[in-house]
């Protein structure tokens, strides 16, 4: 996380100075990470974790503050990804209108945010397991539609050869620039969520989560607040979708399949949805596991290992990694933050 953004976020959130110090330490670590990491660890682990974390963050925003668990976040990221592929440049020979990046990126994110609002508007009158079912249905239908539609989505193969733009003489898909691009976007989104949580809108949303009928009786427009939360989540997921398509250099229905949709939920649950740092912790763990499990247990059973680790984490701590952290915090905090004698 960039230092400035985090301090602003922490102060705005009215948190203890200890949290600010932790943010600074984390920011320094993440900014200096490229000094020690190989190109692979920069993009395939670092960049990819940040992207997955962003998508899970959009879910955390909805689930943590709005009480709406969505399985369609990867679909919304996919909307932005497909917009970049269709209106930008690709070498699949289908569409590819070659819009410049400064029109394309805002347009893609806007499309994702509108798609997200639409999903929200459809599902907002439901709650609990019904929201999950509706969003799962939307994600599944979108996946199969993208896979079988050739005129717009180019079917199973999707779009190939989608470059990241060259801006200011920098190739933004180069390992170092791309890592910082992801880091910058993630920090911004993280700080925005921390800030938003304490804003009037954020507090209202949390109140709606806790008691929608009372908020309605007090004169708040419950539906509008929820749909706006979906819009904001769509902005975050859309930004992640743009980064994702630059990261892969391609997009196909495999990117928005049901498996990946559930993956986002797993990341959020593993990380914990009480605090916006949770999705990023979850993403790092999941990406590391998915990349290296095959080296640990061989090709036949590596998915079993991944599943087993998830099971253990959720079993030991229903709040995910964040919950584990909280459990040990009082003692650790005492050790660390008491003034020295």
């Amino acid at each position, binding site marked *: 996380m960039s230092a400035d953004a985090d301090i602003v976020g922490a102060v705005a959130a009215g948190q203890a100075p200890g949290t600010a110090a932790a943010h600074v330490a984390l920011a320094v670590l993440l900014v200096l990470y490229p000094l*020690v990491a190989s190109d692979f660890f920069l993009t395939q682990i670092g960049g990819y974790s940040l992207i997955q974390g962003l998508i899970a963050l959009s879910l955390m925003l909805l689930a943590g503050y709005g009480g709406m668990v969505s399985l369609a976040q990867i679909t919304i990221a996919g909307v932005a990804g497909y917009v970049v592929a269709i209106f930008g440049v690709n070498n699949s020979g289908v569409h590819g209108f070659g819009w410049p990046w400064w029109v394309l990126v805002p347009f893609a994110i806007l499309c994702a945010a509108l798609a997200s609002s639409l999903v929200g508007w459809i599902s907002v009158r439901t709650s609990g397991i019904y929201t999950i079912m509706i969003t799962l249905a939307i994600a599944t239908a979108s996946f199969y539609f993208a896979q079988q539609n050739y005129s717009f989505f180019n*079917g199973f193969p999707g779009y190939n050869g989608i470059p990241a733009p060259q801006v200011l003489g920098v190739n933004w898909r180069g390992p170092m620039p791309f890592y910082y691009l992801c880091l910058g976007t993630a920090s911004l989104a993280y700080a925005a969520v921390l800030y938003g949580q304490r804003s009037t809108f954020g507090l209202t949303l949390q109140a709606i989560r806790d008691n929608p009928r009372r908020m309605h009786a007090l004169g708040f427009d419950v539906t509008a607040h929820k749909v706006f939360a979906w819009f904001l989540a769509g902005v975050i997921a859309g930004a992640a979708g743009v980064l994702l398509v630059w990261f892969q250099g391609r997009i196909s229905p495999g990117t928005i399949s049901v498996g990946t949709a559930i993956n986002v939920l797993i990341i959020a649950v593993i990380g914990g949805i009480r605090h916006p740092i949770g999705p990023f912790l979850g993403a790092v763990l999941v990406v590391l596991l998915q990349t290296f499990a095959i080296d640990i247990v061989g090709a036949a059973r590596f998915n079993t290992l991944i599943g087993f680790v998830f099971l253990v984490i959720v079993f030991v701590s229903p709040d995910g990694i964040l919950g584990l952290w909280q459990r040990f915090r009082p003692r650790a905090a005492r050790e660390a933050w008491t003034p020295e004698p």
Partner: protein
Amino acid sequence: MTLSRRHILALAMTTALTLPSVALAQDDTIKIGVLATFEGAFTVLGEDGERGALTALAEFGGMAGGKKIEVVRGSSDASPDSAVRAARKLVEQDGVKILVGPLSGDEGIAVKEYAKSQPDVTFINGTSAAQDTTLRDPAPNFFRFSTDGAQWMAGLGTYAFTEKGYQTVAVVAEDYSFPYTQVFGFMAEYCKAGGKVPSKSWVPIGNKDFSSVIAAIPDDVDAIYVALGGADAVNFLTQYQDAGGQAPLVGGSITVDQTVLTSKGKLRDVLVGTPSAGPIADTNDSAEWMAFVDAYKQQAGAFPSPSLFAHGYYINMKAALLAIDQLGGDLSDPAKLRDTLGGLSFDTPTGKVSLDKNRNAVADMFLTEVTEGTDGNLVNKLIKVVPQVNQTLGIAEDEFLALGAVSRDNPSCP
């Protein structure tokens, strides 16, 4: 501020994250990446592909060019994105100089695109058999010693029309580039011979419920051409039989191979007598093939007879090992490795293999028919060998390219 447990944890995490990037360079081993589908609908196929690659390695005693060969595995779920992600890991993290794979059609096209960005690494196909992996816009460092899906169909269209007497055929196939290629290869001959294909059904990979597809097959067709793989083939065939389907089948190369023929259940009544074509035939009685089957059976979990995935990975892995041998284990110059691979021409269990100018193989093809073997297993009985089929199926190259890229609608003869 004292050093707290939290700081130590953070430090430990950072070290753990960066440690694996310190590659341990060992001079006496060469790493070869093997990329196959170890998850998803094609898992069984991917595992058999791995067996094939290991069979080749065992044949060389685990050594090539005086160096020990270390196999690093990568897994995809048959989607192009996952294949590229796995390839990136093998190339950029594990540092393989040669990558063997991937397994399925669009994965091959995606990995070919990725290969262009990694000129120092040499990519050798697994069994992916889409036409455009090598035909249009090929990558200079992507080699395919296995053949493509249209080549695999050599002889089948003519056989179905003239010998079997099928005047009209409905097509049921998966909706991606490999089945398009197979259908192209089948129809190129079948339509030329005078056959008609009034209906084509494209189903997504991993489809479970085929009832609407089965209902859409016209009643008056003489046969159904099925190009489905792995679990999809088993699901379709079972449901077609349950629905009371009577039409005889014509099989794509992976529809009636060992991964499907060994599945449990009452499929055998439907399958017996199904003609097909591909790069292998189970009852091939040449000494080379028999020796290959014996070697293959040494692998854990092997089928009674190797599938074409085992065969394809075997041939491609063998090409890699032969090239390493010829270079004496010195892979420092990728251009030299490429020249060596391009010039390879070797005898395989299924005849001579050499490459064309697009680095795609020219090899013998086998026309087969499903029969019950002496031990009760279903096998593909060899009907005819079609010698040395090239990628343009014997048609002049410019004429062949003019037929257009394979797709849902190309070719067409309703």
